[in-house]
């Protein structure tokens, strides 16, 4: 069972890394600005999941605080970018 658990942790880590690579490809080739903002939002989410998976892998609770910080900053930055796309300015 320990081997299965280690394999599952490594598999989840590799999957999140692969998802981040896909998001980076969309971020680079995205034809419009909204595609890039969507890819950036998904990249924030994948970074949060990467932090959680690493927390499970190393059995440490420190990664949880990092995940909360990452998702908070990701939400604020995505809202600011979407507002900028709608209005052309962030604070009116």
């Amino acid at each position, binding site marked *: *069972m*320990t081997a*299965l*658990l*280690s*394999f*599952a*942790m490594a*598999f*989840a880590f*590799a*999957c*999140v890394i*692969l*998802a*981040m690579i*896909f*998001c980076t*490809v*969309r971020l680079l080739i995205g034809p*419009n*600005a*909204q*595609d890039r*903002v*969507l*890819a950036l*939002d*998904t990249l924030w*989410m*994948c970074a*949060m*999941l990467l932090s*959680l*998976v690493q*927390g*499970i*892998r*190393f*059995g440490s*609770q420190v990664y*949880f605080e990092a*995940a*909360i910080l990452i*998702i*908070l900053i990701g*939400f604020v930055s*995505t*809202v600011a970018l*979407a*507002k900028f*796309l*709608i209005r052309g300015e962030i604070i009116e």
Partner: protein
Amino acid sequence: MSGVEELPAWIALTVSVLLILGGVVIVTGALGLMRLPNFYQRIHGPAITITLGAGCVLIASMIYFSVLQSRPVIHEILISAFILLTAPVVAMLIMRAAVYRDLRGGKSTSGVSSGDVYTTSDKD
């Protein structure tokens, strides 16, 4: 890898299944973001990653740390609640930005504005 050895077998099995399912779902959502042809189809891809993938990983983390520390560790509920609150808001904001930009750019035949559901001013 501290303390993996003293986990019961069915807890290790549950955590492994949740982690593998979460990984597959996360990769599927990101693949949809990369492969789908239209923006309004692409925005559906990360929704899977945000809800089901993050849910699986968060539940796996909750079970793993609860068993590892022999006490209920449920502060991943904070992240779950925040994701469930903010994911629709972010999706609506990006969608509105895309609709505004498409309408302003006069692309009346792309995505949600196809089929004369939304008409632009220069078409009237």
